[in-house]
């Protein structure tokens, strides 16, 4: 027995599935009667959504004075929540685009799901910049649209770059998602028996037939979109970090921000995908497709990005000291020991310490533990944005103008309310759209490869894994 052992890649789809059983597994959810539990969940989500509507209504009526903003801290929960939600969205694009370019076939089980999360997270993020402007009726000044002052936006401002980056990101993510959906919507169209579903899914599937001449262009489009979305997703969080890094506030004006923000975004996004996936696969019985192997792979991504974030935190400290700038040194000392030290250490514990448990294979494959860590990570990433935004503003150059920031009930309500928006959209998605990229999953199971069929009889032959005999070690 050699000391080396060949470990074959685990099968992407567990259980004895063929094309037709996969179709039924995924699309029955959309075709059956709406379960009562769905209505209950929807009611909960709608209640939270109403909370957001009320909080925003009062904000428009009264103005941003209802928030906890004060003189040095002009950016509070609104920007924190914006960055947090946008960051969560990034995992979806990473899974759908970057893993596609790297030919990671396991992405097919979770990409639809993760892309949906991206779109809804970006919607939640978009709420904040739209409402934080104060005079919401002139929000169109953010766009290059002629206005009564005959002025144009300032193209030198990172805040304007953000407008373009986030709106492009939302549009491209939506298109990417829709392109992936078309063949699966056609599947539901062909299985539907009632008039309403036939017409609705018929319209949105655009008359898709599964023609291989169409698939040929389709795959090309998918590849190009993945190629476009990859630099796009990196650019979006880079530009979000420019909102901070291009200013001259101590603790913000650093070149590490773009890569560090992108790593953090992927970190929190994967955690959110895991939170949602672990719940959804249990409720909808998708454990054959969203397997523990997927969870383990995602936990490895969390471990890697979490360590990158941890490295960035330490690097920030080092560079602050190495730069010799008094204000830089002071702000980092204040972060760890000053009035917001509780937030700083919450961030360090959740983001740097907690993912290190995933060095253990046993913990990576533990569903309960993964679920727990996925929530801890998102709490930590919220605190990261809180620490960055608030500490630098509250304690900047002039100690006489320092002040302590705390949110009001309206800040909290708006934030909690965006979960209502998110879950409302997500429940609609689970009910009406196929939650698994069905055509893509079918394409990666061994049955789909023409080479796995016998040359003579055309019968399916399971691919054999040939293990080469390991070379004996020469001493």
């Amino acid at each position, binding site marked *: 027995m050699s000391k080396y052992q060949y470990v074959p890649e685990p099968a992407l789809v567990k259980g004895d599935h*063929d*094309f*037709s059983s996969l*179709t039924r597994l995924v699309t029955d959810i959309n075709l059956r009667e709406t379960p009562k539990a769905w209505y209950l969940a929807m009611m909960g989500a709608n209640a939270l959504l109403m909370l957001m509507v009320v909080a925003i209504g009062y904000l428009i009526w009264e103005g941003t004075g209802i928030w906890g903003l004060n003189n040095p801290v002009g950016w509070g929960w609104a920007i924190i929540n914006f960055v947090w939600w946008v960051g969560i969205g990034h995992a979806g694009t990473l899974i759908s685009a970057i893993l596609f370019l790297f030919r990671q076939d396991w992405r097919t089980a979770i990409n639809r799901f993760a892309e949906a999360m991206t779109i809804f997270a970006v919607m939640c993020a978009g709420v904040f910049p739209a409402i934080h402007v104060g005079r919401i009726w002139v929000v169109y000044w953010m766009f*290059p649209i002629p206005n009564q002052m*005959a*002025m*144009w936006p300032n*193209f*030198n401002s*990172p805040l304007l*770059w953000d407008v*373009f*980056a986030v709106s*492009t990101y939302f*549009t*491209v993510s939506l*298109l990417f998602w*829709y*392109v992936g959906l078309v*063949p699966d919507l*056609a*599947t539901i*169209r*062909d*299985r539907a028996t009632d008039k309403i579903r036939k017409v609705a899914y018929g319209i949105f599937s*655009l*008359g*898709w*037939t*599964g*023609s*291989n*001449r*169409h*698939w*040929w*262009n*389709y795959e*090309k*489009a998918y590849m*190009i*979109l993945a190629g*476009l*979305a990859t*630099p*796009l997703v990196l*650019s979006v969080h880079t530009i979000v970090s*420019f909102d901070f890094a291009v200013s001259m506030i101590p603790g913000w004006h650093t070149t590490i921000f773009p890569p560090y923000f992108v790593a953090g975004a992927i970190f929190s996004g994967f955690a959110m995908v895991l939170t949602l996936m672990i719940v959804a696969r249990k409720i909808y019985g998708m454990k054959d497709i969203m397997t523990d192997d997927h969870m383990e792979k995602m936990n490895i991504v969390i471990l890697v990005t979490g360590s990158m974030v941890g490295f960035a935190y330490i690097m920030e400290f080092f560079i602050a000291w190495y730069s010799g700038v008094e204000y830089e040194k002071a702000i980092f000392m204040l972060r760890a020991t000053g009035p917001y030290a509780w937030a700083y250490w919450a961030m360090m514990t959740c983001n740097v310490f907690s993912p290190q448990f995933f060095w253990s294979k046993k913990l990576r494959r533990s569903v309960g533990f993964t679920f727990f860590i996925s929530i801890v990570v998102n709490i930590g990433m919220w605190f990261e944005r809180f620490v960055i935004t608030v500490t630098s503003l509250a304690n900047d150059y002039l100690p006489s103008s320092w002040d302590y920031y705390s949110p009001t009930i309206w800040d909290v309500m708006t934030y909690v309310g965006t979960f209502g928006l998110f879950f409302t959209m997500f429940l609609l998605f689970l009910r009406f759209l196929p939650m698994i990229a069905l*055509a893509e999953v*079918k*394409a990666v199971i061994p*049955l*789909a*490869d*023409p*080479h*796995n*069929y016998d040359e003579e009889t*055309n019968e399916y032959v399971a691919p054999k894994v040939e293990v080469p005999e390991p070379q004996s070690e020469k001493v």
Partner: protein
Amino acid sequence: MSTTEDQKIHGILAEFRNPKELTDVAKKMVNSGYSKFDTFSPFPIHGMDKAMNLKKSKLGWIVLGHGILGFSIAIAMMYFMSVIDYPLNISGKPFFNAPAWVPITFELTVLLSAFGAVFGMFFLNGLPKLHNPLFNSERFKKATDDGFFACIEADDDMFEAEKVKALFQEAGATHIEEVYE
């Protein structure tokens, strides 16, 4: 062109058992000299492009064109707004502030390229299509589930119903039917 009764025939549709058989019949159709044929499967089949002798997709050129358009629109828009129409002196920076314009130029290039990729793909595929004669076949619904179909259209110059049926029969089709407009 053959007509049965008063209905016009669209083509002959045959069902096969698996991706391998479909790839084989695609090669057969090409070798027999048919050009207006197609194969249908619930997912893209690896190697089908070669079997069907498909030319490289033109989509890349459409995307490139849109990308260049997006790039030009971005530069033209910012140049007009910040240099020609209402120049503003912002901290003494030049009106044509190229480095600061990079992000927006990039975003608009990506945005227009993505439009080109998605709408170009639907355009090349002739979608959305309101009616397709293939949907008259009840069996064809399986094409989005677990069915593998091949179709030779009546528009093909070489189309002769009997010969086409014989070709499919020989290739091992499990079901052959005529599809009418």
